[in-house]
Structures are given as structure tokens and as C-alpha cells.
């Protein structure tokens, strides 16, 4: 599995790293602040053959490319033409309902993740794909965008390629790349009307964006990886940091559409109030879409052995044979690494999620950074 890949650190190194990360403030091996993301290079619309594409390179050298392709597909439940003729009356009723009811289905989006060195049916890859598509479909608004008419819809294929070998858990990278690719996705403009066979505008320049530009109300979600060591919360952990994590969460957030729209609208109407309202509510309000625990690789790290029980150290006692050996095993010795056992306190988990949702926090910063990426 991608998150539990082998880390070549000795128990002593793990203990040291754990201690460094539990200090206040934590000292991270790469010198970042706990809330700091790795710098990244991003570009969009790199592949003219796709409806939308993006590429992101993290400073540690991991790189991902996402391509979005759309195809027109018949909506299930409306197969034959005979059926339609027969159900003329029903259709009248359906016509009225249509405007309000643009039902989208999760099946209209197909998301595949490709990680070099892993089989495509690997459990870790399936987990990543499920997590990314879950965030996308969570609010049910995304699938509605793919609606063409009652008989047809767009089927969106999102192919996520990790180009580099997975040096760290690739979830944030893949999520950000997908975000950008979706932002740059355009679908041909529909020329036909109603329920006739769809017919599109040839002019690519006229093709509207899937996520309309300029309005901040709708943007694809992002998934962030956040972990806790002791009482510290650390964002965007590297592979080494994950190896000593107590708990790792993948949190998907989207922008709260209604709230930000209303504050924006007010600000514009009053004119001068714009700055005030912005100052009162710095950053955007975020919506929680999904949370998943990621199995921390720290649980499978090799444990160290305290000197008291180490026969090689000179204390040649056959501790393991004594009945109290098990109690000895459970005690933690300072400076000796032991893989964490059990789970995490509910309060710690809540704190992690709270930190992600914080106004003007990391998620905000990342969304701002992604907004700055020029499309095209």
C-alpha cells in the first residue's frame, strides 16, 4: 500500500524524529513550519487532446499529470425511441419537472489513479481513487454539471497519473492536480435544445468551462493530508514524518457556496463596505466534504529495544521467558521507539479537522495559491 511503504529509518532515528516533531514548535526535518506546504510548480491545459489537463510538480520532485476527457453517453432509463413515443403523456409531466430536477449520478464520473510500480487493482490505489472521487461527488452538485438533456449526459473520465515514483504519500499532490485539471476543463457548447440528440458547437474557443470562471462560488474540492504527533498538528507530511505519525487524516474541503456568495454580494452592493466585510471575515468559509483516516505507516515500523532487555548490551537475562515479560513490553522507555498502538482520541481527531477548516488557514492558503495559477 502506498501509505505503508518501507521507510529506511532505524528505530533510533524514528525515536529522534518523533521527539523533534513533538516539541513546541515542532522541528520538521525539512525546516518547514507545521502549517507550511511544500512549494509547487503548476501548469494547466498542457495537453490539447484533452478537455482539461494539469501538471503539478512538488519541490521534492514528485510530479503528477491529470487529464480529463468527456464523452456523450445515453442516460440509463431512456433507451429506446419507442419507449418515448409510448410515454408521450408522461413526458409532458416530465418536462415541467425538468428544470428543477437536474439529477446527476455518481456513475457519470470515472476516476482512475495510476501509480508506477503498483498494480492498478492494488488496495492502496483503490483507496486513493475512492477518496478523490468521494470528495468530488460528496455535494451532489458536480454530477449535475454533466447533465445535457434527459436522455444524454457527459461521462467524465479523470485519469490521474503519478509520473514520479511515490516518494511521499501522493494524496495531496493528486488532489491538487485534479483540482486544477477540473478548473481548466471545458465542454463543447450545446447547440441543440430540449431532448433532441445533442449537437455541439465546433468552436473550441466558445466552449464554456465546467467551473465557470470569475465566480468563486463553485470550485472543485481539495483533499489535504494532516497528521498529529503528540499535541502538534502537521500539514502536508513527508514520508519520513508519516513514519512517526500518531494519526493521519485525509480531509476534503470545498468552498461554502452560499455563504461566500452572500458576503461578496453584500460587499459589492454597499461598495465601501467591501474592505470591512473582508476584514471581519478573513479568508473564505469552507465546507467539510469528507474525512478518512489513513492507516499511518508508523504502526508497522520496527521497534527499538531498551537496554534493560537487550541481552547483547550485557544484561544477559532471559526476560522473554519470565512471566512479566509482557508487562515489560508494554512500558514505554524514553528514547526508544515503539510503534504506536491503538487509535487516536476523538478530541485529537476533531482538532485536526478544525485546523483544516480554520478561516484563513492552510486550506485557504492552498486555494488562494491554486487560484493564482493561470488557466491556459
Amino acid at each position, binding site marked *: 500500500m502506498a501509505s505503508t511503504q518501507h521507510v529506511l529509518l532505524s528505530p533510533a532515528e524514528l525515536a529522534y524524529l518523533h521527539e523533534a516533531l513533538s516539541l513546541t514548535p515542532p522541528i520538521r526535518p525539512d525546516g518547514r513550519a507545521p502549517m507550511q506546504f511544500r512549494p509547487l510548480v503548476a501548469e494547466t491545459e498542457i*495537453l490539447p487532446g484533452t478537455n482539461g489537463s494539469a501538471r503539478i510538480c512538488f*519541490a521534492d520532485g514528485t*510530479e503528477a499529470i491529470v*487529464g480529463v*476527457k468527456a464523452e456523450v453517453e445515453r442516460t440509463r432509463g431512456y433507451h429506446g425511441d419507442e419507449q418515448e413515443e409510448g410515454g408521450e403523456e408522461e413526458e409532458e409531466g416530465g418536462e415541467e419537472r425538468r428544470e428543477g430536477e437536474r439529477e446527476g449520478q455518481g456513475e457519470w464520473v470515472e476516476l482512475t489513479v495510476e501509480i*508506477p*510500480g503498483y498494480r492498478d487493482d492494488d488496495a492502496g490505489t483503490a483507496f486513493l481513487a475512492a477518496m478523490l472521487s468521494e470528495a468530488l461527488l460528496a455535494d451532489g452538485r458536480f454530477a449535475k454539471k454533466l447533465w445535457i438533456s434527459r436522455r444524454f449526459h457527459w461521462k467524465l*473520465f479523470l485519469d490521474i497519473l503519478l*509520473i*514520479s515514483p511515490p516518494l511521499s504519500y501522493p494524496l495531496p499532490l493528486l488532489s491538487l492536480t485534479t483540482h486544477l485539471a477540473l478548473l481548466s476543463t471545458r465542454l463543447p457548447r450545446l447547440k441543440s435544445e430540449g431532448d433532441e440528440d445533442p449537437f455541439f458547437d465546433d468552436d473550441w474557443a466558445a466552449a464554456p468551462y465546467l467551473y465557470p470562471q470569475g465566480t468563486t462560488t463553485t470550485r472543485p474540492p481539495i483533499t489535504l493530508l494532516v497528521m498529529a504527533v503528540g499535541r502538534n498538528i502537521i500539514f502536508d507530511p513527508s514520508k519520513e514524518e508519516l513514519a512517526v505519525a500518531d494519526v493521519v487524516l485525509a480531509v476534503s474541503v470545498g468552498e461554502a457556496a452560499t455563504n461566500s456568495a452572500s458576503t461578496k454580494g453584500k460587499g459589492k452592493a454597499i461598495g465601501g463596505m467591501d474592505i470591512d466585510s473582508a476584514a471581519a471575515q478573513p479568508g473564505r468559509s469552507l465546507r467539510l466534504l469528507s474525512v478518512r483516516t489513513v492507516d499511518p505507516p508508523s504502526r508497522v515500523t520496527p521497534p527499538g529495544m531498551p537496554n534493560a532487555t537487550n541481552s547483547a548490551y550485557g544484561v544477559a537475562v532471559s526476560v522473554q521467558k519470565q512471566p512479566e515479560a509482557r508487562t515489560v513490553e508494554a512500558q514505554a522507555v524514553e528514547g526508544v521507539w515503539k510503534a504506536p498502538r491503538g487509535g487516536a482520541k476523538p478530541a485529537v481527531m476533531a482538532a485536526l479537522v478544525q485546523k483544516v477548516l480554520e478561516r484563513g488557514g492552510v486550506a485557504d492558503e492552498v486555494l488562494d495559491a491554486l487560484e493564482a495559477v493561470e488557466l491556459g
Partner: protein
Amino acid sequence: MPLDTSAYSLALLRVDGRRWNELRRIHAQIRTQAAADGSSYLEMGHTKVMCVVTGPSEPGPRRGTTGGAAAGASKAAAEVAVSVVVAGFSSVDRKKRGRGDKRNLELQSTISNALAASLHTHLFPHSVIQVSLHVLSQDGSLLAALINAATLACVDAGIPMTDYVVACTAGSTSTYAAGDESADPLLDLNHQEEQELPGLTVATLGETDRVAVLVCESRVQVGRLEGMLAVGVDGCKQVREILDRVVREKGKRMVLEGTVVKGEGLEDMDLD
């Protein structure tokens, strides 16, 4: 849409406006990825591929269970493991190719054999050179583009090799069925031409005429083959020029930036 070959004899121009002996635009970059041992990006027309080379390194635990014969061979020399991933969005219609796809396997083994022959693998016993290739967009000459990208990435990784392995495709102006003996050879086929006309992929070792790979999957009269091969080999020389320039320019820039120290015996290297 079938390719209209009748127009060729009138103006001697191909569908995309090239002459018979012209390559498409080749754009290449090396060291595109900071973390990889070697990496490259190559465009041949609209065919776009990326390559990442890892190694030579110790074979990982997950590769421990290869067959007995292969394991024996890898002891004396490094094993070149190639994986080709064709992105679902690379072709016009989205098509998902699984990893066990037969065409993919064939591409992989062809590239692996070609590289193994020119890399000095005997210098790295008990190790693996992992070459992973990603196809981002395809428009003909896929195998040639993959071989060229892999060569560049191996150069970037600093793996000793006898010479560049450079590849390009060659075809013929009329179909097999036309039986046209006077058909002219063509250089560097695009997707449309590849579908309709007989073609072959040839890779040579640098500027020499030594052929490293020759793949011909279409029916063609024997008489035309020689001409096609000659044009292909000639194209390879042009490709080598381009790739060599890319490598030299990158090297020059790295010396100027101070990333690397100028090697010995390179006093005459032109650093303008």
C-alpha cells in the same frame, strides 16, 4: 476518415504539409524532474512522452520473485526493467489500456532489449535500471518516441552507454494493395499515415548504420523495404543531431549555473 494518398503525387506534399524526407517538430527536454535519477520529456509532433529512470539500484523486495532464468541473468549485469503506461486520455477516444495489455508488453520488451544492448549493464551487476515511460498524447511513431525519450533519460541518469539509441519511423507513399512499384519512401509517419500506409520503426546506434531495433508490422513489398529502411536510418541520424543538441545545451547550462563542474578533457567545450 481514410487517408487520401492520391494528392501526394500532384504536389509531393503529405497530409500535414511535409515533404517525404521531413521530420515533424521534435522538442525535447532533459532533467525535467528533480527527484528522479534521470528524466526526460519528448515531443515528436503531437506524440508526447515522458520518461523517468530510477537506478541503477538494488532490486527492491517486490521484484524478488522473478523467474529463475531472469534472476540468474541479472546477477552478471543490470536488468533493464521498462514499464510503459499509456494514459487513458492520450488518444482521441478515451481508451483504457491495462497493464497486461499485449501491445504494451511488446513495447516494453522491445525497448528493454534495445537499451540493454547499448547500456553498459555489465558495470552494474545485481542491480535494476527501472525505466518508466508515460504516454501523454499519441499521434503515430509511438515506439520511436518512447525509445528516444528513454535514451535521453538514461543520458540524464548518467548510465554509461555506447551511443544514443535513436529511433524514427519510415513508410511508403502508397498502400500494399496498390502494388505501386514506384512508391516513394516517407519519413516519420503520423497517426493517420500509420493507419493506412505500410511503415516500420527503425532505431540505430548513434550515427552509425548499426540497426538496434527494426519493427515492421505491416505488409509491404520487398522491393520497397530497402528504400524505407534507408530513409529511416537517415532520419535516425537527424534525430540524433537533435537529441545531442538538447543534451549539450542542458550540459552547458548546468556548467554555467555551476550545478556541475566541467569535466576534464573538455577544455574545448564551447561556453558562450
